[in-house]
């Protein structure tokens, strides 16, 4: 395949990755890494470098509109980023001690279960829980433009969410993937934050975690310019389109898309764990 054709095809694939990544809050890497390695036979290290670039591009590209339109909650993001960045730092050290294939399998099973769990929408009663004192003190409660108008929400179970975020960071430090999935699940399932706020806040956060890793991987020579160029431009275009769609999309549909993507991610993790390819 000539460089011209390769660049074009990778750009198209990346566009889809950016679209799905911005809609689900997972970043583009979930789609990109398996496609690059299986379809284009790209070495996994180049694929990881490109994937990190794609996560930052998705995050920053879509976050601009998510933040301005009041979907992402910047306080939730900043508070939880302490946990994710610390977790990522510790995960990088732990990676040499923990058998990553076992970890990948556990994570895979967890994702399969979450794929089932995250399909369910919350009832009206579950949406109107009284505020948690800790969440109030940290000023995490907020509002966002729902389809029917402005909707307020109260954040629940802050300590559980914070711990899960630490786990999300550690996972991404050890496995190089998956932090977005745990972020969305922690906010959606544990903290009971509305789904659109969960995914857009995750989208806002993943850029920071990925930036630290991307710097490290660029320094190690994993980020190839010829490969990253179509990835970055394609993903960016996809994420800009995704951020327009999310605003008008029904939460039920977004949950279904999310569920399918993490199901695929779960199967990926199980496969990698079983065949020792991580």
């Amino acid at each position, binding site marked *: 395949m000539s*460089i011209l054709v390769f660049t074009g095809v990778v750009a198209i694939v990346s566009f889809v990755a950016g679209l799905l990544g911005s809609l689900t809050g997972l970043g583009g890497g979930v789609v990109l890494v398996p496609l690059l390695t299986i379809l284009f036979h790209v070495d996994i290290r180049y694929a990881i470098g490109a994937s990190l670039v794609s996560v930052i591009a998705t995050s920053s590209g879509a976050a601009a509109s998510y933040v301005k339109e*009041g979907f992402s909650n910047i306080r939730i993001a900043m508070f939880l980023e302490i946990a994710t960045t610390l977790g990522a730092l510790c995960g990088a050290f732990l990676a040499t001690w923990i058998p990553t294939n076992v970890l990948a399998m556990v994570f895979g099973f967890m994702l399969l279960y979450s794929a089932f769990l995250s399909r369910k929408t919350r009832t009206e009663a579950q949406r109107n829980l009284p505020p948690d004192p800790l969440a109030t003190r940290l000023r995490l409660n907020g509002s966002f433009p729902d389809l029917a108008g402005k909707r307020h929400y109260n954040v629940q179970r802050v300590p559980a969410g914070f711990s899960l975020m630490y786990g999300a960071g550690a996972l991404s430090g050890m496995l190089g993937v998956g932090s977005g999935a745990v972020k969305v699940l922690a906010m959606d399932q544990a903290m009971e934050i509305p789904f659109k706020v969960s995914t857009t806040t995750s989208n806002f956060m993943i850029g920071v975690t990925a*930036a630290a890793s991307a710097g*490290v991987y*660029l320094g190690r020579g994993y980020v190839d310019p010829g490969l990253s*160029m179509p990835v970055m431009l394609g993903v960016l275009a996809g994420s800009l389109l995704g951020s327009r769609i999310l605003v008008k999309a029904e939460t039920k549909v977004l949950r279904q898309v999310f569920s399918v993507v993490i199901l695929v991610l779960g199967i990926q993790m199980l496969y990698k764990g079983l065949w020792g390819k991580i």
Partner: protein
Amino acid sequence: MAVAPAPVRHAHEFTPQPWRDRRLERILGNLLRAGVLISAAVVLCGGSIYLFRHAHEPADYHVFRGEPSNYRTIPGVIQSVRDGRGRGLIQLGLLFLIATPIFRVALSIVGFAIERDRLYVLFTAIVLFILLYSLLGSGLTS
């Protein structure tokens, strides 16, 4: 005087003032957009040069060789941009892209300081510190 109706349990009644940092949100949104557009423009420039020169060579990412130092460190990238290399320009754009979220965190500290929100200045400073710590150990600057 009529008896007050039973309170309806709506979330907003429990939080009289939900926090909306509209101004900070707008500033951060603009920063992210500017950062991503600048880096995209630089990558596009570099990409055009690269494709113009190498379009018909075979693409080969099957074997990992690791990037040479002029695509791996900041001084190396700057040198290759000076030499007019397309791939150097792409790496420069990617460095801008990586810097964007870090600038976002740094600017948030300023934003929360203007709002006199000490707790969040502290939170954000911790995040920035951890980020810089992991980046400085990466060999990117040497």
